[in-house]
Protein backbone atom coordinates (compact mmCIF):
# COMPACT_ATOMS: atom_id res chain seq x y z
CA UNK A 1 0.00 0.00 0.00
CA UNK A 2 0.98 3.58 -0.53
CA UNK A 3 0.52 6.50 1.73
CA UNK A 4 -1.13 9.53 0.20
CA UNK A 5 -0.99 13.19 1.03
CA UNK A 6 -4.02 15.31 0.40
CA UNK A 7 -4.91 16.66 3.80
CA UNK A 8 -1.51 16.15 5.23
CA UNK A 9 0.28 17.64 2.24
CA UNK A 10 1.28 20.81 4.05
CA UNK A 11 1.96 19.28 7.49
CA UNK A 12 5.68 19.25 6.86
CA UNK A 13 5.85 22.72 5.35
CA UNK A 14 7.79 25.05 7.62
CA UNK A 15 5.53 27.62 9.24
CA UNK A 16 2.57 25.86 7.70
CA UNK A 17 0.22 27.62 10.11
CA UNK A 18 0.69 31.13 8.78
CA UNK A 19 -1.53 32.66 6.16
CA UNK A 20 1.48 33.71 4.07
CA UNK A 21 2.75 30.19 3.49
CA UNK A 22 -0.82 28.98 3.00
CA UNK A 23 -1.58 31.54 0.31
CA UNK A 24 1.81 30.84 -1.24
CA UNK A 25 0.74 27.20 -1.50
CA UNK A 26 -2.38 28.34 -3.35
CA UNK A 27 -4.64 28.64 -0.36
CA UNK A 28 -7.83 30.66 -0.30
CA UNK A 29 -7.82 30.77 -4.12
CA UNK A 30 -10.71 28.36 -4.28
CA UNK A 31 -12.57 30.27 -1.58
CA UNK A 32 -12.23 33.52 -3.49
CA UNK A 33 -13.39 31.83 -6.66
CA UNK A 34 -16.38 30.43 -4.83
CA UNK A 35 -17.20 33.85 -3.43
CA UNK A 36 -17.14 35.26 -6.91
CA UNK A 37 -19.40 32.49 -8.08
CA UNK A 38 -16.79 31.06 -10.42
CA UNK A 39 -17.31 27.58 -9.05
CA UNK A 40 -20.99 27.62 -9.80
CA UNK A 41 -24.09 28.07 -7.69
CA UNK A 42 -24.41 26.61 -4.17
CA UNK A 43 -26.49 23.83 -5.66
CA UNK A 44 -23.64 23.02 -8.03
CA UNK A 45 -21.21 22.74 -5.18
CA UNK A 46 -23.59 20.56 -3.19
CA UNK A 47 -23.98 18.39 -6.27
CA UNK A 48 -20.20 18.22 -6.63
CA UNK A 49 -19.75 17.20 -3.01
CA UNK A 50 -22.41 14.56 -3.47
CA UNK A 51 -20.72 13.33 -6.59
CA UNK A 52 -17.36 13.16 -4.85
CA UNK A 53 -18.77 10.54 -2.49
CA UNK A 54 -17.29 12.30 0.53
CA UNK A 55 -18.47 10.75 3.75
CA UNK A 56 -18.38 12.44 7.13
CA UNK A 57 -15.13 11.78 8.94
CA UNK A 58 -16.57 12.10 12.46
CA UNK A 59 -17.62 8.54 12.91
CA UNK A 60 -21.08 7.97 11.49
CA UNK A 61 -19.86 8.19 7.90
CA UNK A 62 -22.93 9.91 6.48
CA UNK A 63 -22.69 11.42 3.01
CA UNK A 64 -21.70 15.07 3.39
CA UNK A 65 -23.38 16.32 0.24
CA UNK A 66 -26.58 14.58 1.23
CA UNK A 67 -26.46 16.22 4.63
CA UNK A 68 -26.00 19.64 3.12
CA UNK A 69 -28.95 19.14 0.81
CA UNK A 70 -31.22 18.73 3.85
CA UNK A 71 -30.88 22.41 4.75
CA UNK A 72 -34.25 23.92 3.97
CA UNK A 73 -34.24 26.75 1.53
CA UNK A 74 -36.64 29.65 1.74
CA UNK A 75 -36.60 30.04 5.52
CA UNK A 76 -35.98 33.45 6.96
CA UNK A 77 -34.07 32.10 9.93
CA UNK A 78 -30.29 32.42 9.84
CA UNK A 79 -28.32 29.28 9.07
CA UNK A 80 -25.22 28.05 10.79
CA UNK A 81 -22.26 25.83 10.23
CA UNK A 82 -20.63 24.10 13.14
CA UNK A 83 -17.30 22.40 12.78
CA UNK A 84 -16.93 19.61 15.27
CA UNK A 85 -13.38 19.72 16.56
CA UNK A 86 -14.25 18.11 19.86
CA UNK A 87 -12.09 15.16 18.94
CA UNK A 88 -12.80 12.90 21.88
CA UNK A 89 -13.05 9.33 20.72
CA UNK A 90 -10.36 7.28 22.41
CA UNK A 91 -7.69 6.41 19.88
CA UNK A 92 -8.47 9.31 17.58
CA UNK A 93 -6.09 12.24 17.15
CA UNK A 94 -6.26 13.24 13.51
CA UNK A 95 -8.12 16.56 13.78
CA UNK A 96 -5.49 17.83 16.13
CA UNK A 97 -2.93 17.56 13.36
CA UNK A 98 -5.05 19.65 11.04
CA UNK A 99 -5.76 22.23 13.71
CA UNK A 100 -2.13 22.53 14.64
CA UNK A 101 -0.50 22.29 11.24
CA UNK A 102 -2.98 23.49 8.65
CA UNK A 103 -5.63 25.67 10.31
CA UNK A 104 -6.15 27.78 7.22
CA UNK A 105 -7.24 24.79 5.20
CA UNK A 106 -9.99 24.27 7.77
CA UNK A 107 -10.94 27.94 7.75
CA UNK A 108 -11.08 28.00 3.96
CA UNK A 109 -13.35 24.95 4.11
CA UNK A 110 -15.56 26.76 6.61
CA UNK A 111 -15.79 29.74 4.28
CA UNK A 112 -16.72 27.62 1.25
CA UNK A 113 -19.26 25.60 3.23
CA UNK A 114 -20.89 28.68 4.73
CA UNK A 115 -21.22 30.18 1.28
CA UNK A 116 -22.66 26.95 -0.08
CA UNK A 117 -25.27 26.32 2.57
CA UNK A 118 -26.05 30.01 3.02
CA UNK A 119 -24.75 30.28 6.55
CA UNK A 120 -23.71 33.58 8.01
CA UNK A 121 -21.49 32.15 10.64
CA UNK A 122 -19.36 29.11 11.04
CA UNK A 123 -18.46 27.95 14.50
CA UNK A 124 -15.33 25.96 15.02
CA UNK A 125 -15.92 24.02 18.23
CA UNK A 126 -12.77 22.79 19.96
CA UNK A 127 -12.22 21.06 23.23
CA UNK A 128 -10.29 23.00 25.81
CA UNK A 129 -7.50 20.39 26.00
CA UNK A 130 -6.31 21.41 22.51
CA UNK A 131 -4.31 24.30 23.93
CA UNK A 132 -2.00 24.54 20.94
CA UNK A 133 -4.74 23.96 18.42
CA UNK A 134 -6.91 26.65 19.97
CA UNK A 135 -4.06 29.17 19.77
CA UNK A 136 -3.23 28.22 16.20
CA UNK A 137 -6.79 28.36 14.98
CA UNK A 138 -7.47 31.63 16.75
CA UNK A 139 -4.37 33.12 15.20
CA UNK A 140 -5.39 31.86 11.80
CA UNK A 141 -8.88 33.32 12.16
CA UNK A 142 -7.41 36.65 13.12
CA UNK A 143 -5.14 36.52 10.09
CA UNK A 144 -8.03 35.62 7.81
CA UNK A 145 -10.12 38.48 9.14
CA UNK A 146 -7.10 40.79 8.74
CA UNK A 147 -6.83 39.63 5.16
CA UNK A 148 -10.46 40.58 4.63
CA UNK A 149 -11.53 37.02 3.95
CA UNK A 150 -14.42 37.10 6.43
CA UNK A 151 -16.88 39.66 7.64
CA UNK A 152 -19.81 41.49 6.13
CA UNK A 153 -20.01 41.70 2.36
CA UNK A 154 -16.89 39.58 1.93
CA UNK A 155 -14.80 40.60 -1.04
CA UNK A 156 -17.79 42.40 -2.48
CA UNK A 157 -19.73 39.18 -2.82
CA UNK A 158 -22.71 40.56 -0.97
CA UNK A 159 -22.53 37.72 1.51
CA UNK A 160 -21.79 37.93 5.19
CA UNK A 161 -19.59 35.10 6.39
CA UNK A 162 -18.14 34.94 9.85
CA UNK A 163 -15.99 32.32 11.43
CA UNK A 164 -15.56 32.04 15.15
CA UNK A 165 -13.93 29.70 17.59
CA UNK A 166 -15.83 28.16 20.49
CA UNK A 167 -14.08 26.19 23.15
CA UNK A 168 -15.86 23.53 25.13
CA UNK A 169 -14.93 22.17 28.51
CA UNK A 170 -13.77 18.87 27.14
CA UNK A 171 -16.64 16.47 27.51
CA UNK A 172 -16.87 13.45 25.25
CA UNK A 173 -20.59 14.02 24.87
CA UNK A 174 -19.95 17.40 23.23
CA UNK A 175 -18.69 15.49 20.25
CA UNK A 176 -22.30 14.40 19.75
CA UNK A 177 -23.63 16.93 17.29
CA UNK A 178 -26.75 18.04 19.17
CA UNK A 179 -25.10 18.36 22.53
CA UNK A 180 -22.37 20.32 20.77
CA UNK A 181 -25.12 22.71 19.75
CA UNK A 182 -26.32 22.91 23.34
CA UNK A 183 -22.75 23.55 24.42
CA UNK A 184 -22.40 26.42 21.95
CA UNK A 185 -25.74 27.79 23.14
CA UNK A 186 -24.41 27.78 26.66
CA UNK A 187 -26.77 25.28 28.23
CA UNK A 188 -26.02 21.91 29.70
CA UNK A 189 -24.78 19.78 26.79
CA UNK A 190 -27.44 17.10 26.82
CA UNK A 191 -27.97 15.53 23.40
CA UNK A 192 -31.24 16.48 21.81
CA UNK A 193 -33.91 14.15 20.62
CA UNK A 194 -34.09 13.64 16.88
CA UNK A 195 -36.19 14.51 14.94
CA UNK A 196 -36.04 17.42 14.41
CA UNK A 197 -32.62 17.03 12.86
CA UNK A 198 -30.16 19.90 13.22
CA UNK A 199 -30.26 20.57 9.49
CA UNK A 200 -33.86 21.69 10.10
CA UNK A 201 -33.74 22.93 13.67
CA UNK A 202 -30.28 23.17 15.13
CA UNK A 203 -28.28 25.90 16.75
CA UNK A 204 -30.64 28.46 18.37
CA UNK A 205 -33.48 26.69 16.60
CA UNK A 206 -32.08 27.50 13.16
CA UNK A 207 -30.97 25.18 10.34
CA UNK A 208 -27.47 24.03 11.13
CA UNK A 209 -24.89 21.83 9.44
CA UNK A 210 -22.40 20.08 11.66
CA UNK A 211 -19.31 18.58 10.09
CA UNK A 212 -16.10 17.14 11.31
CA UNK A 213 -12.84 19.09 11.00
CA UNK A 214 -11.41 16.59 8.54
CA UNK A 215 -14.59 16.65 6.44
CA UNK A 216 -14.52 20.42 6.15
CA UNK A 217 -10.79 20.36 5.40
CA UNK A 218 -11.56 18.11 2.46
CA UNK A 219 -14.01 20.61 0.94
CA UNK A 220 -11.48 23.05 -0.60
CA UNK A 221 -9.63 20.16 -2.20
CA UNK A 222 -12.80 18.75 -3.75
CA UNK A 223 -14.04 22.12 -4.95
CA UNK A 224 -10.59 22.91 -6.31
CA UNK A 225 -9.81 19.66 -8.05
CA UNK A 226 -13.28 18.45 -8.86
CA UNK A 227 -15.52 15.64 -7.72
CA UNK A 228 -14.22 13.13 -10.22
CA UNK A 229 -10.70 13.43 -8.88
CA UNK A 230 -11.86 12.81 -5.35
CA UNK A 231 -14.21 10.02 -6.31
CA UNK A 232 -11.28 8.33 -7.97
CA UNK A 233 -9.26 8.18 -4.78
CA UNK A 234 -9.29 4.92 -2.93
CA UNK A 235 -12.21 2.53 -2.82
CA UNK A 236 -15.10 3.12 -5.14
CA UNK A 237 -17.91 3.02 -2.62
CA UNK A 238 -16.13 5.05 0.03
CA UNK A 239 -13.67 7.19 -1.80
CA UNK A 240 -11.15 9.68 -0.56
CA UNK A 241 -8.02 9.99 1.40
CA UNK A 242 -8.25 9.78 5.17
CA UNK A 243 -6.09 10.37 8.17
CA UNK A 244 -5.65 7.11 10.08
CA UNK A 245 -4.64 7.25 13.72
CA UNK A 246 -2.78 4.16 14.75
CA UNK A 247 -2.19 3.65 18.43
CA UNK A 248 -1.44 0.78 20.72
CA UNK A 249 1.21 -1.90 20.61
CA UNK A 250 2.85 -1.13 17.29
CA UNK A 251 6.42 0.03 16.73
CA UNK A 252 5.50 3.35 15.17
CA UNK A 253 2.10 4.66 16.22
CA UNK A 254 0.91 7.90 14.67
CA UNK A 255 -1.27 9.53 12.07
CA UNK A 256 -1.01 8.11 8.56
CA UNK A 257 -2.80 9.41 5.53
CA UNK A 258 -3.89 6.85 3.01
CA UNK A 259 -6.58 6.37 0.46
CA UNK A 260 -9.35 4.07 1.59
CA UNK A 261 -9.42 0.48 0.57
CA UNK A 262 -6.00 -0.65 1.76
CA UNK A 263 -5.47 -3.74 3.83
CA UNK A 264 -5.20 -3.10 7.54
CA UNK A 265 -2.54 -5.77 7.94
CA UNK A 266 -0.29 -3.92 5.52
CA UNK A 267 -0.66 -0.64 7.41
CA UNK A 268 0.34 -2.31 10.60
CA UNK A 269 3.17 -4.33 9.17
CA UNK A 270 4.68 -1.96 6.59
CA UNK A 271 4.16 1.51 7.88
CA UNK A 272 3.78 1.05 11.59
CA UNK A 273 6.72 -1.30 11.74
CA UNK A 274 4.79 -4.29 12.98
CA UNK A 275 4.02 -5.25 16.55
CA UNK A 276 6.09 -3.74 19.32
CA UNK A 277 8.59 -6.18 20.77
CA UNK A 278 7.72 -8.74 18.12
CA UNK A 279 4.65 -9.85 19.99
CA UNK A 280 1.70 -11.43 18.32
CA UNK A 281 -1.34 -9.41 17.38
CA UNK A 282 -4.36 -10.04 19.60
CA UNK A 283 -6.97 -7.78 18.16
CA UNK A 284 -7.65 -4.41 16.61
CA UNK A 285 -10.32 -1.92 17.40
CA UNK A 286 -10.54 -0.32 13.98
CA UNK A 287 -12.59 2.83 14.30
CA UNK A 288 -12.17 4.50 17.62
CA UNK A 289 -13.29 2.86 20.80
CA UNK A 290 -16.94 2.71 19.80
CA UNK A 291 -16.48 0.11 17.09
CA UNK A 292 -16.51 -3.63 17.26
CA UNK A 293 -13.25 -5.47 17.73
CA UNK A 294 -11.49 -7.44 14.97
CA UNK A 295 -9.54 -10.65 15.56
CA UNK A 296 -6.14 -11.34 13.82
CA UNK A 297 -7.62 -13.46 11.04
CA UNK A 298 -10.15 -10.74 10.37
CA UNK A 299 -7.41 -8.10 10.45
CA UNK A 300 -5.53 -10.06 7.80
CA UNK A 301 -8.49 -9.93 5.44
CA UNK A 302 -10.17 -6.63 6.12
CA UNK A 303 -9.86 -3.67 3.77
CA UNK A 304 -10.20 -0.25 5.29
CA UNK A 305 -13.28 1.20 3.68
CA UNK A 306 -16.88 1.34 4.81
CA UNK A 307 -18.20 -1.64 2.82
CA UNK A 308 -15.05 -3.64 3.45
CA UNK A 309 -15.14 -3.34 7.18
CA UNK A 310 -18.89 -3.75 7.39
CA UNK A 311 -18.36 -7.31 6.15
CA UNK A 312 -16.74 -8.01 9.51
CA UNK A 313 -19.48 -6.27 11.46
CA UNK A 314 -17.39 -3.32 12.51
CA UNK A 315 -17.14 0.26 11.31
CA UNK A 316 -14.50 2.77 10.34
CA UNK A 317 -15.79 5.28 12.84
CA UNK A 318 -13.34 8.05 13.38
CA UNK A 319 -10.46 5.99 11.96
CA UNK A 320 -8.78 5.46 15.30
CA UNK A 321 -7.04 2.13 14.93
CA UNK A 322 -6.15 0.66 18.28
CA UNK A 323 -3.85 -2.32 18.05
CA UNK A 324 -3.55 -4.67 20.99
CA UNK A 325 -0.93 -7.38 21.43
CA UNK A 326 -1.14 -10.81 22.98
CA UNK A 327 -0.21 -9.61 26.46
CA UNK A 328 -3.29 -7.45 26.77
CA UNK A 329 -5.86 -8.56 29.29
CA UNK A 330 -9.17 -8.02 27.55
CA UNK A 331 -11.04 -7.69 30.83
CA UNK A 332 -8.83 -4.81 31.78
CA UNK A 333 -9.10 -3.36 28.30
CA UNK A 334 -12.86 -3.42 28.23
CA UNK A 335 -13.03 -2.18 31.80
CA UNK A 336 -10.84 0.72 30.81
CA UNK A 337 -13.12 1.52 27.91
CA UNK A 338 -16.27 1.18 29.99
CA UNK A 339 -14.87 3.43 32.69
CA UNK A 340 -14.43 6.01 30.00
CA UNK A 341 -18.02 5.70 28.86
CA UNK A 342 -19.37 5.67 32.40
CA UNK A 343 -17.40 8.77 33.15
CA UNK A 344 -18.42 10.53 29.96
CA UNK A 345 -22.10 9.60 29.98
CA UNK A 346 -23.99 12.86 30.23
CA UNK A 347 -26.57 11.41 32.57
CA UNK A 348 -29.61 12.43 30.62
CA UNK A 349 -31.15 9.11 29.66
CA UNK A 350 -31.83 6.52 32.27
CA UNK A 351 -30.37 3.46 30.49
CA UNK A 352 -27.02 5.08 29.81
CA UNK A 353 -26.76 6.92 33.12
CA UNK A 354 -27.45 3.80 35.14
CA UNK A 355 -26.24 1.15 32.72
CA UNK A 356 -22.68 2.30 32.06
CA UNK A 357 -21.66 2.52 35.73
CA UNK A 358 -23.30 -0.82 36.36
CA UNK A 359 -21.25 -2.41 33.60
CA UNK A 360 -18.14 -0.94 35.18
CA UNK A 361 -19.08 -2.27 38.58
CA UNK A 362 -19.66 -5.75 37.21
CA UNK A 363 -16.42 -5.70 35.21
CA UNK A 364 -14.48 -4.52 38.21
CA UNK A 365 -15.87 -7.40 40.16
CA UNK A 366 -14.84 -9.84 37.45
CA UNK A 367 -11.36 -8.32 37.23
CA UNK A 368 -10.99 -8.61 41.01
CA UNK A 369 -11.82 -12.28 40.81
CA UNK A 370 -15.22 -11.95 42.42
CA UNK A 371 -17.26 -12.50 39.29
CA UNK A 372 -19.89 -15.11 38.69
CA UNK A 373 -20.71 -16.89 35.50
CA UNK A 374 -24.13 -15.24 35.38
CA UNK A 375 -22.39 -11.87 35.26
CA UNK A 376 -21.46 -12.50 31.61
CA UNK A 377 -25.10 -12.92 30.68
CA UNK A 378 -25.89 -9.97 32.89
CA UNK A 379 -23.43 -7.79 30.96
CA UNK A 380 -24.99 -8.87 27.69
CA UNK A 381 -28.40 -8.10 29.08
CA UNK A 382 -27.43 -4.67 30.34
CA UNK A 383 -25.97 -3.91 26.93
CA UNK A 384 -29.17 -5.09 25.28
CA UNK A 385 -31.23 -2.84 27.53
CA UNK A 386 -29.03 0.16 26.78
CA UNK A 387 -28.64 -0.24 23.06
CA UNK A 388 -31.07 1.83 21.01
CA UNK A 389 -32.93 3.08 24.05
CA UNK A 390 -31.24 6.44 24.44
CA UNK A 391 -31.24 9.87 22.84
CA UNK A 392 -27.74 9.73 21.45
CA UNK A 393 -25.38 6.96 20.39
CA UNK A 394 -23.10 7.03 23.40
CA UNK A 395 -24.81 4.04 24.96
CA UNK A 396 -24.68 2.22 21.64
CA UNK A 397 -21.00 3.11 21.34
CA UNK A 398 -20.39 1.66 24.77
CA UNK A 399 -22.33 -1.50 24.01
CA UNK A 400 -20.65 -2.41 20.74
CA UNK A 401 -17.10 -2.93 22.01
CA UNK A 402 -18.49 -4.51 25.18
CA UNK A 403 -20.62 -7.09 23.43
CA UNK A 404 -18.08 -7.83 20.71
CA UNK A 405 -15.21 -8.29 23.15
CA UNK A 406 -17.43 -10.31 25.44
CA UNK A 407 -18.34 -12.56 22.54
CA UNK A 408 -14.90 -12.92 21.03
CA UNK A 409 -12.88 -13.14 24.26
CA UNK A 410 -15.38 -14.85 26.49
CA UNK A 411 -12.76 -17.34 27.63
CA UNK A 412 -10.68 -14.56 29.16
CA UNK A 413 -13.64 -13.44 31.23
CA UNK A 414 -14.43 -16.97 32.25
CA UNK A 415 -10.83 -17.46 33.31
CA UNK A 416 -11.20 -14.60 35.77
CA UNK A 417 -14.26 -16.13 37.38
CA UNK A 418 -13.32 -18.38 40.26
CA UNK A 419 -14.40 -21.95 39.81
CA UNK A 420 -16.16 -21.23 36.56
CA UNK A 421 -13.79 -22.75 34.05
CA UNK A 422 -15.03 -26.25 34.47
CA UNK A 423 -18.64 -25.20 34.22
CA UNK A 424 -17.94 -23.06 31.19
CA UNK A 425 -16.19 -25.87 29.41
CA UNK A 426 -19.16 -28.07 29.97
CA UNK A 427 -21.39 -25.37 28.57
CA UNK A 428 -19.10 -24.96 25.59
CA UNK A 429 -19.05 -28.63 24.75
CA UNK A 430 -22.74 -29.12 25.30
Amino acid at each position, binding site marked *: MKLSSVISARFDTPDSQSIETYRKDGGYETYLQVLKGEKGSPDDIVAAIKASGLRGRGGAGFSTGMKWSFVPKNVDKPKYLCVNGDESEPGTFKDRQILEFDPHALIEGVGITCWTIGAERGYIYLRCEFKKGIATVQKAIDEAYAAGLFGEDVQGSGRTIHVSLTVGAGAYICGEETSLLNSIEGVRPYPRNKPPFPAVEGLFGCPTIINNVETITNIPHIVKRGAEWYAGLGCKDDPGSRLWCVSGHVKRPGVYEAETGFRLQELIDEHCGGMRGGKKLKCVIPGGSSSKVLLPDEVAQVTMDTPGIRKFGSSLGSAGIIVLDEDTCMVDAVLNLM*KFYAHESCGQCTPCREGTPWVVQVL*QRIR*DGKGRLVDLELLDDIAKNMEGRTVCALADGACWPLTSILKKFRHEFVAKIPGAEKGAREVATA
Partner: protein
Amino acid sequence: MAKVVDRHKLTWYEELYLPAIASGLKRTFRQMFQPDITLQYPEERPQIYDDYRGAPGLVRDQDGREKCVSCQLCEYICPPKAIVIVPGEAPEGATYDYSHIEKAPREFFIDMLRCIYCGYCEEICPEQAIFMTGEYELNAGSRQELVHDKKRLYEIGGLRPDPIQKWKGKDDRLDAGGFTDLRKRGAGAEEGE
Protein backbone atom coordinates in the same frame (compact mmCIF):
# COMPACT_ATOMS: atom_id res chain seq x y z
CA MET B 1 -66.08 -29.47 40.06
CA ALA B 2 -67.90 -30.34 43.11
CA LYS B 3 -67.81 -33.92 44.11
CA VAL B 4 -71.14 -35.34 45.28
CA VAL B 5 -70.89 -37.67 48.20
CA ASP B 6 -74.03 -39.69 48.71
CA ARG B 7 -75.29 -39.79 52.24
CA HIS B 8 -74.82 -43.17 53.82
CA LYS B 9 -78.17 -44.88 54.14
CA LEU B 10 -78.65 -45.88 57.75
CA THR B 11 -79.66 -49.41 58.66
CA TRP B 12 -82.54 -49.86 61.08
CA TYR B 13 -80.05 -50.72 63.75
CA GLU B 14 -78.14 -47.54 63.22
CA GLU B 15 -81.38 -45.63 63.06
CA LEU B 16 -82.14 -46.64 66.60
CA TYR B 17 -79.25 -44.42 67.62
CA LEU B 18 -79.16 -46.13 70.99
CA PRO B 19 -76.11 -48.31 70.21
CA ALA B 20 -74.29 -45.24 68.97
CA ILE B 21 -75.21 -43.34 72.10
CA ALA B 22 -74.06 -46.29 74.19
CA SER B 23 -70.73 -46.44 72.44
CA GLY B 24 -70.40 -42.70 72.91
CA LEU B 25 -71.09 -43.06 76.57
CA LYS B 26 -68.51 -45.81 76.75
CA ARG B 27 -65.95 -43.55 75.12
CA THR B 28 -66.53 -40.64 77.46
CA PHE B 29 -66.57 -42.90 80.46
CA ARG B 30 -63.25 -44.43 79.53
CA GLN B 31 -61.84 -40.98 79.06
CA MET B 32 -62.43 -40.23 82.71
CA PHE B 33 -59.63 -42.54 83.66
CA GLN B 34 -57.04 -41.14 81.29
CA PRO B 35 -54.25 -39.15 82.92
CA ASP B 36 -54.67 -35.37 83.09
CA ILE B 37 -52.65 -33.34 80.67
CA THR B 38 -53.38 -29.93 82.15
CA LEU B 39 -50.54 -27.48 82.75
CA GLN B 40 -50.74 -26.12 86.29
CA TYR B 41 -50.22 -22.60 85.05
CA PRO B 42 -48.93 -20.32 87.77
CA GLU B 43 -46.68 -23.05 89.16
CA GLU B 44 -45.75 -24.65 85.86
CA ARG B 45 -44.80 -22.52 82.88
CA PRO B 46 -45.40 -23.35 79.24
CA GLN B 47 -42.43 -23.69 76.96
CA ILE B 48 -42.25 -20.59 74.75
CA TYR B 49 -41.05 -21.38 71.24
CA ASP B 50 -39.22 -18.95 69.01
CA ASP B 51 -42.17 -18.40 66.76
CA TYR B 52 -44.57 -17.90 69.62
CA ARG B 53 -46.86 -14.99 69.05
CA GLY B 54 -46.99 -13.09 72.30
CA ALA B 55 -47.20 -9.38 72.88
CA PRO B 56 -45.56 -7.43 70.04
CA GLY B 57 -42.53 -5.35 70.97
CA LEU B 58 -40.14 -3.00 69.24
CA VAL B 59 -36.47 -3.92 69.07
CA ARG B 60 -33.18 -2.11 68.93
CA ASP B 61 -30.16 -3.41 67.08
CA GLN B 62 -26.75 -4.14 68.53
CA ASP B 63 -25.86 -0.45 68.42
CA GLY B 64 -28.88 0.46 70.45
CA ARG B 65 -30.53 2.15 67.50
CA GLU B 66 -34.25 1.97 67.25
CA LYS B 67 -34.92 0.03 64.11
CA CYS B 68 -38.42 1.26 63.49
CA VAL B 69 -38.53 4.01 60.88
CA SER B 70 -42.29 4.57 61.27
CA CYS B 71 -43.22 3.46 57.79
CA GLN B 72 -46.63 2.66 59.27
CA LEU B 73 -47.08 -0.52 57.31
CA CYS B 74 -47.93 -2.39 60.50
CA GLU B 75 -50.52 0.24 61.28
CA TYR B 76 -51.92 -0.35 57.82
CA ILE B 77 -51.98 -4.12 57.95
CA CYS B 78 -53.14 -4.49 61.56
CA PRO B 79 -56.55 -6.19 61.27
CA PRO B 80 -58.01 -4.90 64.55
CA LYS B 81 -56.40 -1.47 64.11
CA ALA B 82 -54.54 -1.79 67.37
CA ILE B 83 -51.46 0.10 66.20
CA VAL B 84 -51.21 3.88 66.04
CA ILE B 85 -47.94 5.52 65.07
CA VAL B 86 -47.08 9.18 65.23
CA PRO B 87 -44.29 9.52 62.69
CA GLY B 88 -41.59 12.12 62.98
CA GLU B 89 -38.04 13.11 62.18
CA ALA B 90 -35.25 10.94 63.50
CA PRO B 91 -34.05 12.32 66.80
CA GLU B 92 -31.07 14.62 66.92
CA GLY B 93 -27.81 12.93 67.67
CA ALA B 94 -28.46 9.91 65.49
CA THR B 95 -25.06 8.49 64.71
CA TYR B 96 -23.39 9.32 61.43
CA ASP B 97 -23.55 5.74 60.34
CA TYR B 98 -27.28 5.85 60.35
CA SER B 99 -27.86 9.27 58.91
CA HIS B 100 -29.69 7.71 55.99
CA ILE B 101 -32.56 7.09 58.32
CA GLU B 102 -34.44 10.28 58.55
CA LYS B 103 -37.54 8.98 60.17
CA ALA B 104 -38.38 7.46 63.51
CA PRO B 105 -41.60 7.01 65.41
CA ARG B 106 -42.31 9.89 67.69
CA GLU B 107 -44.86 7.73 69.42
CA PHE B 108 -45.88 4.16 68.91
CA PHE B 109 -49.00 2.76 70.52
CA ILE B 110 -50.26 -0.79 70.47
CA ASP B 111 -53.57 -1.30 72.15
CA MET B 112 -53.19 -4.73 73.66
CA LEU B 113 -56.90 -4.86 74.32
CA ARG B 114 -57.38 -4.79 70.58
CA CYS B 115 -54.37 -6.85 69.52
CA ILE B 116 -55.29 -10.28 68.22
CA TYR B 117 -51.72 -11.58 68.08
CA CYS B 118 -51.99 -12.38 64.39
CA GLY B 119 -48.35 -11.43 63.79
CA TYR B 120 -49.04 -9.52 60.60
CA CYS B 121 -47.08 -6.57 61.95
CA GLU B 122 -43.99 -8.68 62.34
CA GLU B 123 -44.50 -10.25 58.96
CA ILE B 124 -44.92 -7.00 57.07
CA CYS B 125 -42.24 -4.99 58.84
CA PRO B 126 -39.63 -4.12 56.22
CA GLU B 127 -37.11 -3.12 58.86
CA GLN B 128 -37.54 -6.13 61.13
CA ALA B 129 -38.25 -3.74 63.92
CA ILE B 130 -41.36 -5.27 65.44
CA PHE B 131 -41.47 -8.80 66.77
CA MET B 132 -44.02 -10.96 68.46
CA THR B 133 -42.27 -11.74 71.73
CA GLY B 134 -42.72 -14.51 74.23
CA GLU B 135 -44.52 -12.14 76.55
CA TYR B 136 -47.96 -13.54 77.29
CA GLU B 137 -48.81 -12.30 80.76
CA LEU B 138 -50.56 -9.02 80.25
CA ASN B 139 -52.57 -7.59 83.06
CA ALA B 140 -53.11 -4.14 84.32
CA GLY B 141 -55.22 -2.10 86.63
CA SER B 142 -56.63 0.09 83.91
CA ARG B 143 -57.35 0.01 80.22
CA GLN B 144 -54.86 2.78 79.67
CA GLU B 145 -52.04 0.65 81.02
CA LEU B 146 -52.67 -1.94 78.34
CA VAL B 147 -52.15 0.57 75.58
CA HIS B 148 -48.44 0.03 75.24
CA ASP B 149 -46.48 3.12 74.39
CA LYS B 150 -43.08 3.32 72.77
CA LYS B 151 -41.19 3.02 76.04
CA ARG B 152 -43.05 -0.10 77.06
CA LEU B 153 -42.75 -1.62 73.60
CA TYR B 154 -38.98 -1.24 73.67
CA GLU B 155 -38.96 -2.80 77.14
CA ILE B 156 -40.82 -5.79 75.77
CA GLY B 157 -38.82 -6.03 72.55
CA GLY B 158 -35.39 -5.36 73.95
CA LEU B 159 -32.28 -5.81 71.87
CA ARG B 160 -32.13 -8.01 68.82
CA PRO B 161 -28.89 -8.16 66.83
CA ASP B 162 -29.45 -7.40 63.17
CA PRO B 163 -27.38 -9.51 60.79
CA ILE B 164 -28.03 -7.28 57.78
CA GLN B 165 -27.88 -3.69 59.02
CA LYS B 166 -28.87 -2.32 55.70
CA TRP B 167 -28.60 1.31 56.75
CA LYS B 168 -25.19 1.06 58.26
CA GLY B 169 -21.94 2.26 56.80
CA LYS B 170 -23.34 3.98 53.77
CA ASP B 171 -22.03 7.47 54.28
CA ASP B 172 -18.36 6.73 54.73
CA ARG B 173 -18.26 5.67 51.10
CA LEU B 174 -19.84 8.76 49.73
CA ASP B 175 -17.16 9.00 47.08
CA ALA B 176 -16.42 5.38 46.41
CA GLY B 177 -19.42 4.46 44.34
CA GLY B 178 -17.46 2.21 42.00
CA PHE B 179 -17.20 3.96 38.67
CA THR B 180 -16.29 7.36 40.06
CA ASP B 181 -12.96 6.04 41.08
CA LEU B 182 -10.86 6.51 37.95
CA ARG B 183 -7.98 8.03 39.87
CA LYS B 184 -7.51 5.15 42.26
CA ARG B 185 -7.48 2.51 39.61
CA GLY B 186 -7.01 -0.98 40.91
CA ALA B 187 -6.58 0.17 44.46
CA GLY B 188 -9.36 -2.12 45.46
CA ALA B 189 -11.38 0.74 46.81
CA GLU B 190 -14.52 -0.88 45.58
CA GLU B 191 -15.44 -4.05 47.26
CA GLY B 192 -18.07 -5.19 44.87
CA GLU B 193 -20.55 -6.95 47.04
